[in-house]
């Protein structure tokens, strides 16, 4: 069965290493924070200028001057630092953030990602997504494998305007975890109960399937 949003978040959370600085995009990536494994401490970077994002505040502690990049009221955890947008993106662009997790509309075998604009629909802007994909060494794109109509979002060439070129090497979908190598998706793991055949059918870009494709465990 396809992974739930929570399972996708949980899977990503298991990739976290103790001491990682992590930027989580809006949507499923945000949920990752709920599944950080015990014994692991990570520091969340919010690109509006907060390193060390904490929990949401208690009602009585809400502070309009303390928000995250999603404009939600938040708190700062122990060890947090707060700085300007220029400094925040210096951190991101300079490759100091260990892991970036973000949603995507499409990815392709060249590591291109499209996540911010659907022509003909209203464009609200890329926010910090282009900086994040260009800046982090390690990015996990989290997305559904295919549209509701069954059309693959893992393509040989993105059809939508790009967020970044050649910057994605890791993709988690609701069906599988894949890495991008030498112009192809490589199937590394499949969701519990999802067949290799289904993944093959729903992957439009070149796909390499190893002899063994382990099933994810939760």
């Amino acid at each position, binding site marked *: 069965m396809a992974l739930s949003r929570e399972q996708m978040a949980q899977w990503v959370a298991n990739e976290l290493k103790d001491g990682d600085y992590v930027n989580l995009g809006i949507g499923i990536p945000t949920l990752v924070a709920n599944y950080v494994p015990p014994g692991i401490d990570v520091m969340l970077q919010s690109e509006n200028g907060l390193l060390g994002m904490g929990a949401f505040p208690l009602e009585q502690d809400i502070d309009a001057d303390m928000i995250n990049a999603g404009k939600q009221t938040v708190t700062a955890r122990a060890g947090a630092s707060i700085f*300007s947008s220029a400094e925040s993106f210096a951190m991101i662009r300079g490759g100091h953030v260990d892991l970036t997790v973000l949603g995507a509309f499409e990815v392709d075998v060249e590591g291109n990602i499209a996540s911010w604009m659907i022509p003909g629909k209203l464009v609200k802007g890329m926010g910090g997504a282009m900086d994040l994909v260009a800046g982090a060494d390690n990015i996990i794109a989290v997305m559904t494998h295919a549209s509701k109509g069954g059309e693959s979002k893992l393509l040989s060439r993105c059809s939508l305007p790009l967020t970044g070129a050649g910057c994605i090497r890791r993709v988690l979908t609701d069906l599988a975890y894949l890495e991008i190598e030498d112009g192809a998706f490589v199937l590394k793991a499949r969701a519990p109960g999802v067949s290799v055949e289904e993944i093959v059918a729903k992957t439009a870009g070149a796909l390499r399937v190893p002899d063994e494709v382990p099933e994810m465990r939760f």
Partner: protein
Amino acid sequence: MKGFDKRVESYADALAGLSDGMTVLAGGFGLCGIPENLIEQIRVMGVKGLTVVSNNCGVDDFGLGVLLKDRQIRKMVASYVGENAEFERQLMSGELEVELTPQGTLAEKMRAGGAGIPAFFTATGYGTPVGEGKEVREFNGRPHILEHAITGDFAIVKGWKADRYGNVIYRHTAQNFNPCVAAAGRITVVEVEKIVEPGELEPSQIHTPGIYVDRLIVGSFEKRIEKRTVRTAA
């Protein structure tokens, strides 16, 4: 001798000289740390044809959104302009020109403007619509695009505390774009919650040194919250 006393008497004084067609840089992220009263003063002045550079454009009835409603903005340079119906309408109808700029590039363009760096290379935006028509050059085996600095006729900034010398500190994440904006204005106007006595701010803890600040005023702030998210006590 006025010396370094940057305080002005009124919001009218704070924005004296702002006129049609000018470029205004505005601090803030969403509705956090925005110069509320300076924006309101621009509304009151009724200047038109502005180019506004700001990460966001407020909401329909608050922040920069009110200047959109009054059609005072000709062009918007921003990274994200959601949460604003009037914005959508003007964009679709072609009344408003929009230059979408990646958030980090926007911050760096203003930082560069303030720092006398006319242009810099960044990997951000290469291969995307943002990179179209821009010079591409490879560094360390990776393509980068050339981006140019941004400066403004006026910079409007929201600080927390300042002294009369124009030294400013920001509170929590209300800092955001404000220091970048402050450095990049030909005339930089800062509104703060409180003016403290000289010496109260530790010199090495000042976020925006007074050299960047031309005018300073105390305001009172609504500080509207866009997304109220809370947890319940465990």
